[in-house]
């Protein structure tokens, strides 16, 4: 019980400016997770999202670049200039802010799954 409130307090004290985005939708969460490991360009993100979701989430280019535009505008990700930019490729990576927000969201999900496990097991949380 104590840790639950502690975690909720931690969650509530996170940046107010970013709270409006939580909870993240699954496509955005998967895009951020894809960029958490390493910088990627658009096609690589699409394939990684598809792989992570076992083929359940397949993004179109329109959806992907709508999300990337918003994440860039919110400074959650940034562009990296690639040496081979002749093919119109641009790589993206998480910013510090994006990584922190991703951690907040993952923490929220962990808390939720922990609570769900307790409730399913019939214990009070």
């Amino acid at each position, binding site marked *: 019980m104590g840790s639950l409130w502690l975690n909720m307090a931690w969650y509530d004290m996170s940046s107010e400016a970013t709270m*409006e*985005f939580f*909870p*993240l*939708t699954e*496509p*955005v969460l998967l895009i951020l997770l894809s960029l958490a490991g390493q910088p990627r*360009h*658009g*096609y690589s993100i*699409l394939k990684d999202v598809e792989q992570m979701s076992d083929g359940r989430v*397949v*993004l*179109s*280019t*329109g*959806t*992907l*670049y*709508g*999300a*990337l*535009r*918003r994440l860039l505008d919110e400074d959650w990700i940034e562009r990296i200039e690639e040496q081979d930019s002749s*093919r*119109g*490729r*641009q790589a993206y990576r998480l910013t510090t802010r994006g990584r922190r927000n991703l951690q907040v969201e993952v923490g929220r999900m962990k808390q939720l799954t922990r609570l769900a496990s307790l409730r399913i097991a019939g214990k009070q949380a």
Partner: protein
Amino acid sequence: MLTLSVYRHLLLLYPESHRDRFGEEMVSVFGEMQAEATGMGTGAQIGFYARETAGLMVGALREHWRSLGGGSIGLLFPRRRVTMHSAFRFPKATAVLMTIILAGVMVAIKQGEAIVASVPHVSQPVGTIHPVHSVLLGGIVQGIVFFYAAGMIGWAILFAMRRSGVHRLAETSGAPK
């Protein structure tokens, strides 16, 4: 099929700022995906092209909405929590759209008046209107009687089975057995 050339043309649906920023990348990524889809079955290819076309249409609509000041549509990021905010304000685009709609209605009314004025009055006198017996009223009454009878029969069956609302209420409000 959606070739690169067609895809480039569909990108024109997007606002210019979005095209300048992401256009070449989107074409490049689409080219890679299309090359991969070529080796797939017909069904998978149809799914790919349908998804891309729909994604472009929806994405363009979303970007135009955003560029009008309407904010991001909650497909990627969910809308804010569903609570009532006293400080809620319509987006700026709403006022513009409402003005356009109002102007359209005004123009339509003016056009209608102009058409009415331009058509000569050629209607013949109707003459005396005689009351005609309508079968509609009889049909409505018959329908009501039929459904009422059906309801009564159904209720009687439930009453006989002690499953009617009266019995249920008695069971609920009665003392525990």
